[in-house]
């Protein structure tokens, strides 16, 4: 036998009614797993949106007026949409004060059967001369620029296309392309696109199979000079050029974030109610425990236990209970989050992995909340019982 201590007495107390202990542990585990799931969901959506917009490396994104939503869908999710504006917009944007660098891209949606022999895919044509979005990725994956008649697949596209291998020929809008590689995963919607330089567009337009017209572009990415406020430059841009809408980096994914805020409210309410319920359950059970054990507590007090000793003893008991429940809850919640990621459309289209650090933080929050709730619920009955006059409770049968 280990030396008698507060800890060993508390453990013996816990083992007295295993069913009751089990019910409490289960309740706390449920609450904590709900909490873990809610936080994981919110954090993974929010942080992957942030990562995506940072990954793009643009401060302001200029799109045709009214196409803001489409553009976000294209860049952050992987929706297949197309939107166009004349290339002459470039000149107007260039004149705006504070713009340091800019590059445009043109987006096409391929439709299988009609024009192309690949699965429906989003095609991104970029300008290699000015580009600062695709080139860095290209440099890493291919190590050389793309030639005419070559395309490179985004990380997710390679799976969709069923290639994953190099040197595959594909017909896209009646043009033969060799797909020379696969880009690294970026965590943006661009993972689901096929990339080519814009010199290919001439031939594609010539084929007549695409809705794209000569001199059209979809989007302009800009970088802002140091010392300029992106929001201000954005407002000037929209004011000076009525044909465009501007998305600031900080606003990117606003649509998601709004939905997310609503979901958060529901989560918050659910976890709050569950917390109140669990606290109440702990309170009720510990009230019963306090009554059951009042005589024993009186004996300990008569033998010289201070009020703080009694609190200590029950604090150990309730903390072990809380930690046990919370640990189970953290494991269950983490597992649940991983399991359910696939079944939420909000998470499916964006790459929603949590980093180890984030997961650890969330787990820690779960442990803390579960244990705190346990202690809160138990404290009231414990405080009541430690005050009783020893002789009077000892005499109770």
């Amino acid at each position, binding site marked *: 036998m280990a030396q*008698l201590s*507060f800890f060993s007495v508390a453990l013996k107390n816990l083992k007295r009614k295993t069913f009751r202990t089990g019910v409490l542990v289960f309740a706390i585990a449920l609450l904590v797993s709900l909490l873990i799931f809610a936080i994981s969901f919110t954090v993974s959506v929010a942080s992957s949106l942030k990562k995506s917009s940072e990954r793009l490396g643009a401060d302001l994104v200029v799109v045709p007026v009214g196409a803001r939503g489409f553009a976000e869908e294209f860049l952050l999710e992987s929706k297949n949409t197309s939107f166009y504006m004349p290339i002459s917009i470039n000149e107007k944007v260039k004149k705006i004060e504070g713009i340091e660098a800019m590059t445009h891209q043109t987006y096409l949606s391929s439709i299988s059967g009609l024009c192309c022999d690949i699965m429906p895919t989003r095609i991104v044509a970029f300008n290699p001369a000015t580009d600062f979005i695709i080139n860095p990725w290209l440099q890493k994956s291919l190590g050389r620029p793309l030639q005419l008649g070559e395309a490179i697949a985004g990380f997710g596209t390679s799976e969709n296309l069923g290639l994953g291998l190099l040197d595959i020929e594909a017909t896209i809008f009646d043009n033969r392309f060799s797909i020379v590689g696969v880009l690294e995963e970026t965590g943006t919607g661009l993972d689901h696109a096929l990339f080519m330089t814009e010199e290919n567009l001439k031939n594609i337009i010539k084929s007549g199979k695409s809705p794209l017209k000569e001199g059209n572009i979809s989007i302009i990415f800009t970088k802002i000079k140091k010392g300029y406020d992106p929001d201000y430059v954005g407002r000037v841009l929209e004011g000076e050029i009525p044909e465009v809408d501007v998305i600031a980096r900080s606003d990117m994914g606003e649509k998601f974030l709004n939905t997310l805020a609503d979901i958060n409210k529901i989560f918050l309410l659910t976890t709050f109610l569950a917390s109140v319920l669990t606290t109440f359950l702990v309170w009720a059970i510990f009230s019963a425990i306090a009554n059951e054990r009042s005589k024993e507590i009186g004996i*300990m007090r*008569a*033998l*010289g236990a*201070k009020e703080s000793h009694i609190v200590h003893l029950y604090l150990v008991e309730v903390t072990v209970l809380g930690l046990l429940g919370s640990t189970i809850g953290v494991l269950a919640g983490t597992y649940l989050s991983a399991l359910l990621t696939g079944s939420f459309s909000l998470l499916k289209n964006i790459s929603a992995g949590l980093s180890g650090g984030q997961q650890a933080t969330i787990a820690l929050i779960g442990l803390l909340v579960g244990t705190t709730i346990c202690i809160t619920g138990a404290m009231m009955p414990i405080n009541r019982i430690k005050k009783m006059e020893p002789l009077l409770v000892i005499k109770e049968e």
Partner: protein
Amino acid sequence: MSFLHIENLTKTYTVHDTSFVGVDNISLTINKGEFLSIVGHSGSGKTTLISIIGGILKPTTGRVLLEGTDICTLDDNRLSEYRVNRIGFMFQFASLLPILTAKENVLLPGIFNPGKNMPDEKAAVDLLEMVGIGEKADSYPSQLSGGQQRRVAIARALLNKPDIILADEPTGDLDEETEAEIMNLFEKINQKHGVTIILITHNLNLAGKAQKKLRMSKGRLVDI
């Protein structure tokens, strides 16, 4: 300054607006190393008096001075220290913790006494042997007879080497032989270690062994 001085002690119990005097204006001086016995009819206030001395019941009025300090005015921490360090209480009522073995029950006051070295298991087993149930060290209270449980409680009261033993009918349900053994133990502790003992008993024979005999009646001390 006397060792233990009780001054105008009164305890009034109030139940549903009617008051009942349990201890009625008792004054008493006890010297260090004294062996005192108290007899009296059931309900005469013996447990009430000894509980106030042991610091587990607050008097309505009056003082209990141990070496000049009124224990009735101590805060919870100091009073608990008084109970754990100076008093060895043997309760009239069953008082073992059911989740602990005999040995662990004996050790229990040790964990409330962080100042001193925590007594080890051997000390507990020795004490149990002294009261004649060494072989029951690992039994739970539910596995012990009433008399054996009492003896565990006696061993427990001795663990922290108290200055004062308060024994409320400690041999109530023991056979005569065991009762005699326990009384011998008390006498030994009293004489060898100079421990002050206040013994409550219904047995006039036992009471006679004490140096000083008191009788209680209706909350008051009366001459024998």
